[in-house]
């Protein structure tokens, strides 16, 4: 059964062009000029109940605009969508009982009040029965480790503590679909791991569909079994995460600070990206060799002061996906389905 079904969904904005300077501002008052910006361009996909989908793309690709249309916040310019059988922008209030949403850079918690007050308000907004709400609330507080600060004003919480409260608040009413718009942005590694684990458990135990946008490869790899990539408002990939990793996340970057300048670094599957005095930047092709082997080879040859291992940035992965999709232009969306 499809939890989300969209067809030909598009969104165009009219953006005012403001010329620089005072003269430009005055001209803009009397003769405003607008540019049509196509944020989302006729996208189609279907998400089944219980799936965990990563909705990816670089900044300005149309990810948040799509989520806003699916939650009924924005009306599309064209196309149709069905979320749990509802048209999001026509049946917004009915749909809202069955979905949860967390927007990473915004807050639903009342700033001067403790999280317990917002939870209480959510129980009334979602019309939850008292007994069931208390049981659910206690369960979420325990699982998200919120007991120590349930009565601390939100303005005094750290970002990680606040995000855990945000996600718990969005799960109080047992949503069938959870929309997460960059939920781990700005969080440290430990808190990210905790949040991912909790969402995975909710998906496994309650069959909740997860629809996530993120720039963090860790969110994608650890949370999602499917990835849809969007760029310039168009879908360019729809495949399982396993396939995507295999095809596109095939290298990692290692930055090494050595005790002495390295000469002649030649290892199988390793390319030198940059070298400056004792700092070396390597690209490791993980389909040909491993990080462990590369590091152990380097340790045998050089004294290493510091190591940094990085995943390729999402923009680079998207660039590679896009480059590949240009080759397959005639077959349209790259799909492993």
């Amino acid at each position, binding site marked *: *059964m*499809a939890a989300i079904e969209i067809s030909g969904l598009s969104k165009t*904005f009219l953006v005012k062009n403001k010329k620089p300077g005072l003269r430009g501002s005055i001209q803009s008052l009397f003769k405003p000029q607008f540019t049509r910006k196509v944020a989302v361009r006729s996208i189609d996909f279907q998400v089944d109940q219980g799936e965990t989908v990563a909705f990816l793309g670089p*900044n*300005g690709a149309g*990810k*948040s*605009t799509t989520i*806003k249309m699916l*939650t*009924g*916040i*924005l*009306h599309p310019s064209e196309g149709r969508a*069905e979320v*749990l*059988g*509802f048209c999001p*922008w026509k049946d*917004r*209030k*009915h749909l*809202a*009982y*069955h*979905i949860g*949403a967390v*927007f990473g*850079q*915004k*807050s*639903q918690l*009342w*700033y*001067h*009040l403790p999280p317990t*007050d*917002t939870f*209480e*308000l959510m129980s*009334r*907004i*979602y*019309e*939850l*029965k008292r*007994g*069931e*709400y208390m049981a*659910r609330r206690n369960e979420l507080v325990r699982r998200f480790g919120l007991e120590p600060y349930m009565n601390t004003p939100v303005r005094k919480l750290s970002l990680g503590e606040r995000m855990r409260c945000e996600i718990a608040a969005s799960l109080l*009413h*047992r949503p*069938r679909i959870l929309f997460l718009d960059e939920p781990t942005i700005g969080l440290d590694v430990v808190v990210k791991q905790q949040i991912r684990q909790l969402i995975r458990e909710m998906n496994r135990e309650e069959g909740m569909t997860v629809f996530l946008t993120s720039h963090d490869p860790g969110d994608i790899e650890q949370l999602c079994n499917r990835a849809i990539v969007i760029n310039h408002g168009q879908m360019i990939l729809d495949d399982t995460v396993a396939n995507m990793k295999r095809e596109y996340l095939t290298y990692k970057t290692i930055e090494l600070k050595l005790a002495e300048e390295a000469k002649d670094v030649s290892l199988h599957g390793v390319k030198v990206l940059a070298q400056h005095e004792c700092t070396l930047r390597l690209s490791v092709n993980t389909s040909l060799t491993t990080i462990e082997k590369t590091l152990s080879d380097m340790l045998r040859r050089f004294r290493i002061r510091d190591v940094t291992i990085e995943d390729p940035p999402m923009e680079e992965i998207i660039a590679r996906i896009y480059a590949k999709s240009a080759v397959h232009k005639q077959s349209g969306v790259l799909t492993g389905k």
Partner: protein
Amino acid sequence: MHGVRQRSTEGGRRGSRLAKLLKYAAVGKVTIRNHLAYVTDFFIRSIFLIIILYIFIQLWNTTFRGEGTELIAGYSFEQIIWYLIFAESFVIACPSLSTKIEEEVKSGDIGYKLARPVSYLWFHYAGYMSEVFIRMPINLAVGGMLGILVLGPPGFGWGWPGFLLVSVGAFTINFLLNMMLALCAFWVEETRGLEFVYHKFLFTVGGMLMPLELFPQVLQKVCAWLPFQAIVYFAARTAVSFDAEAMWRMLGTQAFWIAGLGAALMFIYRKGVSKLHVNGG
């Protein structure tokens, strides 16, 4: 798919009218609790109230002495001062909807409110009415102390319950008009200029500066056709010069404006929400 649509009361939900009422009551309760964090704001407004009332007392004292009469347009000096105390207390009690909604649209926080099973307009109405019914008594207490100091204890009798009753309609109409202006943020994002102009209308033809009986006849007739009189003037006049027949006429006029403005607000909201550009990505 149809199963989800039909099971609207599953998942432990009440789905009743009581549940809907409790929803907005809870919004009101949380708004009040959140607002108590702004105690400094309360104090500053109270100080402003005392200053402005003191100035008005001096102005009207001079005016009555200059006229050399006990009554001006049927109001005694004491009635005028108490009228202004009620009027100023009323207006200072009203929160700025334009600021709130402008901030929500600019920051993108409006997205959260629209993604919840709650009416955006009723949500703000519940918050607004909770705030005014906390601020209003405090303002009246502060202004009243000054009034008692200068004029002695007032004897309004039925004026008090009459004021309370008319205030509900008055604050509601004020909310509707302010909300219509504030929703312009859905199109233009900046609405405080419109709010400024609205406050000037309220100050003049709304009866905040003085009771409308003091205006020239022609202007009084114009004011009678505008909704502004149903806000400050109706409430303050009922308090200081209670007349049961006049009060029922006022309540009827308020009901008329609430129905008309309510319909207009719904229309504007529906148009605006479909055009809304929710900021932030």
